[in-house]
């Protein structure tokens, strides 16, 4: 392994030396740039590492040592301005044939998608030079594969890459959009999973907004966006009375109850006929929808299941503490948890009967756990009593034998 690493580094160093030796761009630019300049940073760039040089993007002739002569070359493209950057990058990245030779896995529709994004629309239509273009997110001269942990587009870094502009109130002034998304996201269940637990499967900004075609999901498409991951809940919601009601009132589907960037872990207090339940925000007992009665029934069913589950766990923990074998009941209690998760999903149906039926299934299982765990505790005391009896019996036997030994000794001593 070490041999391979050395070999790789050797080739890499040799390649860089070769390129640097044949490229007058680096030779000259390094004379007046410090270590943070493009001529140094470029060695960390994926394009450079794949064998592309300065002239592949900027044009010119790397063998020339006179900058005026370089600029005079027909293919000279120089440094693009903010507006030109997307087309500049797209020269290769939208060329399917060219990209096929370098990275067939990479899509070539980034520019097309960018044009549909809020960023692209503002840049091309309004010539807004503040909006993000390719290099705003991907950086320049140190671009890296999104799979590289140090890349600005690596999932764990995406919220901060977006937040560079979107969390900067001064920079975002005039756009009339909030700048607390990053802070909200950090506190959300998604942000905790991504940034604290380092779960790369958790969503970052681009998971909901798209990346090159970044745009806020519309009211109608919100359920579809969330439903990409939360498919079961989205399906249940689509068949619920809320679907029609939300559409009629132009309420964003999931966001109405769960918020958007600051999506906290849902809990059972979300549902009910009293505050802090979210149902009371829209419903009242006299609104003619039966909404609060349904919410109350759902809330009661879930509470009963949670309470029974907790009681079962308490008895089971007690049995385990006493050293009893509780594996089977632990499995059963896990099943109760699965039922509870399913019952909570069913809340999206806004159908009290289905939630109550599921909760009863869980309560029945939890009751079985309670009964069996109590039996284990009973067994524990039975064992103790049995032991006490057995020990007493053996001790009496031992004392009797001891007395007999003494008598026999006395008898033998007398002979």
């Amino acid at each position, binding site marked *: 392994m070490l041999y391979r690493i050395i070999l790789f580094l050797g080739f890499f160093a040799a390649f860089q030396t070769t390129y640097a030796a044949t490229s007058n761009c680096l030779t000259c630019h390094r004379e007046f740039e410090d270590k943070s300049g493009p001529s140094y940073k470029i060695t960390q760039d994926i394009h450079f590492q794949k064998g592309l040089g300065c002239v592949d993007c900027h044009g010119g002739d790397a063998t020339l040592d006179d900058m005026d002569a370089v600029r005079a070359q027909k293919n000279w493209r120089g440094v693009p301005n903010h507006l030109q950057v997307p087309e500049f990058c797209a020269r290769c990245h939208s060329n399917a044939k060219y990209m096929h030779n370098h990275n067939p896995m990479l899509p070539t529709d980034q520019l097309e998608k960018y044009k549909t994004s809020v960023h692209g629309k503002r840049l091309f239509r309004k010539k807004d030079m503040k909006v993000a273009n390719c290099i705003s997110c991907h950086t320049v001269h140190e671009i890296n594969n999104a799979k590289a942990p140090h890349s600005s587009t690596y999932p764990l870094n995406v919220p901060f890459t977006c937040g560079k502009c979107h969390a900067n109130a001064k920079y975002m002034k005039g756009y009339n959009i909030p700048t607390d998304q990053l802070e909200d996201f950090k506190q959300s269940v998604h942000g905790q999973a991504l940034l604290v637990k380092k779960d790369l499967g958790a969503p970052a900004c681009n998971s909901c907004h798209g990346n090159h075609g970044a745009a806020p999901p519309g009211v109608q498409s919100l359920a579809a966006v969330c439903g990409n991951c939360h498919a079961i809940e989205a399906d249940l919601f689509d068949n619920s009375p809320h679907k029609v009601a939300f559409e009629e009132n132009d309420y964003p589907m999931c966001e109405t109850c769960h918020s958007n960037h600051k999506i906290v872990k849902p809990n059972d207090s979300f549902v009910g006929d009293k505050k802090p339940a979210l149902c009371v925000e829209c419903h009242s007992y006299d609104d003619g929808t039966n909404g609060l009665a349904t919410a109350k029934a759902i809330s009661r069913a879930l509470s009963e299941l949670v309470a029974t589950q907790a009681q079962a766990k308490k008895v089971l923990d007690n049995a385990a503490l006493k050293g009893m*074998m509780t*594996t089977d009941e632990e499995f059963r209690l896990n099943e109760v948890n699965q039922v509870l998760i399913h019952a909570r999903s069913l809340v999206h149906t806004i159908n009290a009967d289905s939630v109550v039926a599921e909760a009863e299934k869980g309560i029945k299982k939890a009751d079985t756990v309670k009964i069996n765990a109590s039996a284990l505790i009973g067994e524990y005391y039975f064992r103790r009593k049995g*032991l006490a009896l057995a020990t007493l019996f053996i001790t009496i036997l031992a004392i009797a034998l001891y007395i007999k030994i003494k008598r*026999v000794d006395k008898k033998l001593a007398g002979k």
Partner: protein
Amino acid sequence: MNNKDNVQSGLVKNVYRWIDDRFQINALVDYMSHKEVPVHRHSAFYYFGGIALFLFIVQVITGILLLMYYRPGADSAYESVRFIITNVSFGWLIRALHSWSANLMIFAVFVHMFSVYFTSAYRKPRELTWVSGMLLLALALFFGFSGYLLPWNQLSFFATRVGTGMAGIAPVIGEKLLIILRGGEEVTGATIGRFFGLHVAILPGIFTVLLSAHLIFIQRQGMSEPLEWKNKGAHEKRYIKFFPSFLMRDLLVWLIVLNVLAVLAVVFPDGIGLVHWPLGIKADPFAPPPAVIRPEWYFMFAFQALKFLPAHILFIEGELLGMGVFTVGGIIWALVPFLDKKSSKGQKSKFFQAFGCFVLAFIIVMTFLGYILK
């Protein structure tokens, strides 16, 4: 004596006479009544052989009961043990008694061995009693090793892989020995089959033959008298009759051990501290090994000593050299009665006493280090 006692006494006598007519047991009782056991300050150690025997009997009985439900095999061993401790009436108790008596038996055997060693009781004419005892110890250790794998849990799987792997480093025969032990190159269901066969049939068979020989030797030769009695007059020596005095005392000790065993099995069915055998999770050859793989406590001294050895000592592999030293050491230990010429003349050998102290200290220190060092 009332009428009822007379009737009972008469009945017992008649049965005894009926048996004696056919098997002449009177001669045996007469022989035992004349046999005497020395009484001195170390007499308590005479009972450890009996304790080991009692615990072996418990092993056999509980082992047979476990056998009724245990199913060897990679797909059934773990499940059957789980069934025994969760569903079978008193299955948990039988398993706990089997495990506790196994550990206590090995402990009793060690105490018995060192008490015999330090009192030079192995001296002429009891050389073969010592050698048979050594073979019984080796078999008892192999009983422990083979039984450890049978629940087929994660810890037993990896400990057996390490244990059998050590056999594989032996020169010339190592590779073959490893394959014979494992039933293949890896620890698999085939290994359970082999270990099960060894544990319930082959080892008990050999053990019973050797144990019978060991007991016959003891009965024929009686208990060894302390070396210092050589210069004592007859009036200074005290004895008790083997039958009934010693036998009844033995029985009393067995009852006490049974009581201790019952308390341990009920209060700590999965063992406690360093001596524990929770069923845990099922063996998975593809799972990462547990953070700490430790052998049973009675193998710990050897395991730790081998860990201390460097990878190579001169041109020999460290582990191989260590195994070689243990093998030669074990053979020397078994042949001590033939090497210790002084004791056969009734004198205590300082060299062999020091050797015994060294071995005992080595076992205690290495075992201790094995548990405290990470």
